[in-house]
């Protein structure tokens, strides 16, 4: 029966807060176990009953179907993260462009020191972090 709990836990891995998740795992596991018991009573071998129940159960999307607001919130989060990334990317281009312009235009004043390279590398972490955040939530 541990196989069933493991299967259900895996489906819910990236969703819900800990408390809700625990409860939902309990309910789903219990219902699945009851199905297995019913099938066994009707004469199906245990291993086969477990396999059949798991196959017929459905996937994560089928569970989320019962939570329309969850799907909506997930879409919103993805959209937010995406626009945050684009914002940081264009912000990066703007800052870097300005740095290069100032640096090269007043090169004599800065004693020929090309410090804009430092800005390019330093500020690059901003869009990088945003991209990483976007990709994490997309997973």
């Amino acid at each position, binding site marked *: 029966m541990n196989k069933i709990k493991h299967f259900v836990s895996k489906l819910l891995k990236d969703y819900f807060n800990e408390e809700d998740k625990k409860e939902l795992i309990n309910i789903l596991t219990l219902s699945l176990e009851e199905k297995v018991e019913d099938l066994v009573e009707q004469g199906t071998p245990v291993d086969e009953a477990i396999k059949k129940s798991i196959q017929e159960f*459905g996937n994560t999307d089928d569970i989320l179907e019962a939570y329309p607001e969850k799907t909506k919130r997930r879409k919103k989060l993805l959209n937010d993260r995406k626009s945050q990334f684009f914002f940081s990317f264009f912000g990066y281009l703007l800052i870097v462009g300005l740095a290069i312009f100032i640096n090269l235009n007043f090169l004599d004043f800065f004693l020929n020191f090309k410090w804009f390279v430092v800005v390019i590398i330093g500020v690059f972490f901003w869009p990088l972090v945003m991209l990483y955040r976007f990709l994490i939530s997309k997973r």
Partner: protein
Amino acid sequence: MIHSDVIRGHIDTIILKLLLESDMYGYEIANEIKLRTNNKFNIKEATLYSVVGRLESRELIVSYTGEKTHGGKRRYYRVTSLGKAYYKEMIQEWMLLREIMIDMLGSDLGE
């Protein structure tokens, strides 16, 4: 087979209706739906059990542990008075939807 988007909002009502007839456990509900709809509406068990869990957390149904006629224990569900009231409300809503659709599509129906 019906598209799940169309029927999504009515799964609650269907489950409440079945539980009002008699207390059932999860798999029994799934079976009963399959039986009555002749497989026209094939709800995934993952969805069904999740909806049942939701109904319970909204206190429209409560669960209790009961013995099966022969053999092991099962977790049965019973409709609360809050659930009954909600069910009546949903029926009103469904009648309204039905009326609207008939008003709109009336002349094309039943051909």
